[in-house]
């Protein structure tokens, strides 16, 4: 055997501790985690829209969007739905338990092109988890952006994630929040209907000076993008984030390939312009 220690092994996950967790809604849990190595915890930085690979030894590894903002360093936040073997094992973990992470991976949202522009953030269902990162990033650097609109839709009030946080943000006067559910209950006081109905509430925008970001289930993209196009927002100013199966996160295992692109390296954020050239993106 020849020792190969001179190379930093990019597949080796680092230990992180679950600092706090609570249930968002049924089967959806919020986790705050921190690298055990304090130097790593403080130096770990990322772009909103990037993801990490989370490992539980013996169960496996999978990609998860980062839900926290790099403007609040030290702690990473994840919003996780119990949906498979790894997430089931993750839901059994308690505060102070150790999990393993590596990353950050992917490109993240193109923040440069959003600076000093209006920003429309549209989230559907679970898609709000990565968008929460850019939402807080924008709020923490509020003077760098022009008007900000946050549109979030879910099926029912019981599916609405981060309810307390988002209704608190709604009270702020430097962001316009619009929430909607398809099937309201008697306590629901916000809009009713699919998220695209919220576009009617938007004030007049200058499309060239506007950036749009959308994350949601695959079926949602077409309808939301149609609304952006109706507003005449340029195709390369519409960004979306994609989900794919991933085993490595660094462009080796092949699973997330879309033509010559790797979702893990070239994505997960793509512009609508990209999707016109790579027809398998959405």
């Amino acid at each position, binding site marked *: 055997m020849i020792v190969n220690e001179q190379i930093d092994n990019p597949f*080796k996950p680092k230990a992180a501790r679950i600092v706090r967790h609570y249930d968002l809604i049924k089967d959806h849990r919020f986790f705050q985690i921190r690298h055990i190595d304090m130097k790593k915890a403080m130096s770990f930085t990322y772009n909103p829209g990037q993801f990490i690979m989370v490992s539980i*030894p013996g169960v496996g590894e999978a990609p998860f969007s980062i839900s926290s903002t790099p403007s609040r360093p030290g702690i990473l936040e994840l919003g996780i739905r119990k949906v498979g073997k790894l997430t089931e094992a993750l839901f059994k973990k308690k505060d102070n338990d150790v999990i393993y992470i590596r990353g950050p991976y992917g490109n993240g949202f193109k923040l440069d092109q959003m600076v000093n522009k209006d920003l429309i953030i549209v989230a559907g269902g679970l898609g709000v988890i990565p968008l929460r990162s850019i939402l807080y990033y924008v709020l923490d650097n509020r003077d760098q952006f022009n008007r900000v609109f946050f549109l979030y839709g879910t099926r029912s009030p019981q599916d609405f994630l981060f309810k307390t946080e988002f209704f608190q943000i709604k009270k702020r006067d430097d962001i316009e929040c619009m929430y909607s559910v398809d099937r309201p209950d008697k306590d629901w006081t916000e809009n009713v209907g699919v998220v695209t109905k919220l576009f009617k509430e938007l004030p007049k925008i200058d499309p060239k000076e506007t950036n749009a970001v959308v994350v949601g289930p695959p079926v949602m993209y077409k309808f939301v993008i149609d609304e952006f196009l109706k507003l005449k927002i340029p195709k390369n100013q519409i960004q979306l984030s994609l989900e794919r199966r991933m085993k490595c996160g660094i462009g080796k*295992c092949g699973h997330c390939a879309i033509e010559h692109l790797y979702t893990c390296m070239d994505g997960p954020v793509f512009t609508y312009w990209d999707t016109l050239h790579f027809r398998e993106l959405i």
Partner: protein
Amino acid sequence: MQPKFLEVFLESLDKFGQLYGPKQKNGVLSYDRLESISELVITDEHPMIPIKKLFHPMQFTMMHFNERGFEPDYSVIEKRVILGVHPCEIHSLLRLDDVFLRNPVDPYYSGLRKNSAIIGFSCLPTENSLCFSTDTDIVEEGFDLFFVNLGEFYLVWVGSSLGYDMIYQREEFFDEDVTHEDIQMYIDWRQKRNKMFKKSFEFDSMPDIMELSHDSEVWDYFGDKCLSCGQCSMVCPTCNCYNVTDVFDVTNETVGRRDRVWDSCMFVDYSLVAGGHNFRASRADRLRLWYGHKLKTFGVDYGRPGCIGCGRCVDSCPVDINVLTISEALTTKEVPKQ
């Protein structure tokens, strides 16, 4: 070099590492560890499984884990000298380099690559050789030594300083002077060989044709035929996809290993994510991805498509889906007759 020195010379290379090469194993020609030089089979035939298996092993342990975390396992890496490597195989390693050595570097592949010498050998086309079409019939880089069999003697190309070291330790076998006659013999050999290819296809124009044929019914036709068996991926020298699995030690619930195993985009669960959404549920979609990699898209990132013309897919696919039938169907817009 005179042919009579060949075996002695190759045997002497064991001081540079464990000898590997094609040998007969259970009736199949296969790259493997050579216990003695007499096992080496230098032939025009390709081993069934390509040389990628020595650099991107079918299954190996990447890391061990226990209560304290993950620790990489590099025991798969050893000093090796790999004998009898055909030009297309050397090209395939250059293609794999593009993927595995690109940042961030894969430490396993890179360790295996750095510790392996490649001793190439020329070959003559077999029934399904397509390397003349794919421009991979000769090599300019990617070897330490390369032997061209001109009958009366071997013309030996030196491709690295390690190759020089290998020759210097048995200098007496080699003649440094290349005469006009020698050059002529090499030219004659190449011309003779160029005429021996029985099959060819439109490799150079395939990227454009693939782009135009994204919605072609050809994919549905072949999708209906495809068995999703994944043989094409196993035998393709540039298929690099893999899966990762954790395995607990039999006797322990906290100790185990993380293994890497070959995967294929032909398998139905290749693009399946938790929650049940499958981004490539149809065989036609998966076939288009596979052939995109071989004939088109790999080129955008790495300069050329993945196919290196070895013809293994032609040999192997049980329902005749291969670079020949696909490219023919796409260029003639006709699906093959049953």
